[in-house]
């Protein structure tokens, strides 16, 4: 469970990027955050793992390690008071929260596998990391994560040699390798074409369903939001202006959230098949 209570973020420049937010997200939910550029979407997701510190209010994050790639048994739930969290405890929390970035944030000069192994850093002793000698179990987990996003064949390829969509799948694999109980995705498809975007969204959705990982995704595009979200949260000027199921979010709602009428730039469009070769890759349907 993620619980913002009267939470605020004011940046050094005086911008109120989050204002008195009250928001509770239950374990296993798939939430999409929408809002105009500058509405505070990134601020909200980054607050969850403490990358952006709150300047007011409180934020509690409860993690309950559930089913995961490594078959990690149901761990004991841990509760984190994110405000003021530092050092080891902060890193413990972050290890439970996978993050996916708009720009993928891969180390381009190294292999796909090494990038995914980054998701294991919290578990691997530092001397092993320094020598690049990862335990076999962690390598196995990284490989499984790559299999989950169907890109294990590229394990030993340099990340710079992958297409954008493939790089984002590696980004997802890196998050998965953490065996997280929460995944945050900050505009994961903003630099991808429509078919690839749909593929990436489907992976996220299936991972959410299969492992019960709480998933929070920032999106620009309304059609993507309504199609994949269980729940949509609308932000404007750092304030919550909509919170409801994906099905309830129609054009009027979006007009409210955006404070203007909708344009073609607000929708991503359908996935045209047969364009990008990798786009036709359909994730396997997970056993329900």
């Amino acid at each position, binding site marked *: 469970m993620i619980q913002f209570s009267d939470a605020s973020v004011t940046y050094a420049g005086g911008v109120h990027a989050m204002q008195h937010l009250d928001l509770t997200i239950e374990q296993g939910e798939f939430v999409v955050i929408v809002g105009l550029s500058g509405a505070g979407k990134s601020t909200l997701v980054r607050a969850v793992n403490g990358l952006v510190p709150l300047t007011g209010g409180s934020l509690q994050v409860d993690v309950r390690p559930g089913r995961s790639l490594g078959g990690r048994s149901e761990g004991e739930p841990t509760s984190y008071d994110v405000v003021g969290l530092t050092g080891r405890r902060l*890193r413990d929390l972050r290890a439970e929260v996978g*993050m996916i970035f708009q720009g993928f944030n*891969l*180390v*381009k000069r190294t292999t796909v596998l*090494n990038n995914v192994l*980054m998701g294991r850093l919290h578990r691997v002793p*530092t001397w092993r990391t*320094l020598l690049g000698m990862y335990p076999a179990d962690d390598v196995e987990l990284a490989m499984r994560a790559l299999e989950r996003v169907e890109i294990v064949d590229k394990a030993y390829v340099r990340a710079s040699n992958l297409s954008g969509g493939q790089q984002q799948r590696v980004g997802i694999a890196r998050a998965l390798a953490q065996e997280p109980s929460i995944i945050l995705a900050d505009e994961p498809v903003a630099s991808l074409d429509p078919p690839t975007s749909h593929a990436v969204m489907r992976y996220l959705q299936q991972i959410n369903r299969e492992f019960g990982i709480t998933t929070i995704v920032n999106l620009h595009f309304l059609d993507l939001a309504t199609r994949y979200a269980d729940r949509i949260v609308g932000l404007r000027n750092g304030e919550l202006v909509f919170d409801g199921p994906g099905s309830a979010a129609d054009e009027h709602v979006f007009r409210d959230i955006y404070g203007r009428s909708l344009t073609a730039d607000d929708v991503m469009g359908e996935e045209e098949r047969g364009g990008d070769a990798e786009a036709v890759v359909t994730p396997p349907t997970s056993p329900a």
Partner: protein
Amino acid sequence: MSATAPSRRVARPDEPPPSRFGVAMGVLFVVMTALSVVSTGFSLDGIIEDLGRRNDSISGLLNIDLSVITSTRTLTAFVETLQMAVVGTIIGGAAALPLALASTEVGARTTTVRWLVRAFNNVVRAIPDILWALLFVAMVGIGVLPGLLALVFFSIAVTTKLTSDVLDGIDLGPVEAADATGAAHVAKLRTAVVPQILPAYSSFLLYNFELNLRASAVLGLVGAGGIGTRIEFYRSAGRWPEVWGIIVLFFAITFVVERLSIMFRRRLV
């Protein structure tokens, strides 16, 4: 919007006058040069006259003695020079990586650490190689050890400076990603930063090795071991043919090393 049909003629701007800074620098350069020529009494006549005079070192070049190359003493001194250069590069270069990392915002854990390391790096860089050699000769006596120590510090200065410049331009995305996974500081640097700079860093080490090889010829002049010791031995005895023989060998070796190094470095970056 077609280029052939501009909607309105825009007046072309006048060429801006040369910047004041540029003019000032130009004037300064001319004045400094003139002052130096006058104050040192520089004259081409003097140089030509000196060159024409009988000169032991120049006549030594004409009677160059290449047989010194095969003498065991020379060869031993050369091996010593190579060893000093290799070990100096390895130790100094290894120390330079953490020192370079800790001098940057990403690499240093706290601002205090960063400023301390920067201050240290600046001091090391301010001292030239020959001065290090003099210092260590005074501290540990004549021999290979002071030369090696001098090269270690010289390597730290060179490689730290070059590496930290590269660190300023790395992609911070992976660093953020590593932070988000809950990685410890050192693990983050190892996985998100080092792979980005590794090719450049390796190339700097090779370049540093070239510099060390050349520096080691000079270090011997102050008693810090290596081939410079032999050069100084023959020079002080006025045996210029042998001095030139050693210089030719030294030139050949540095040339080969430099070619090899450039070849490797091309492949790295």
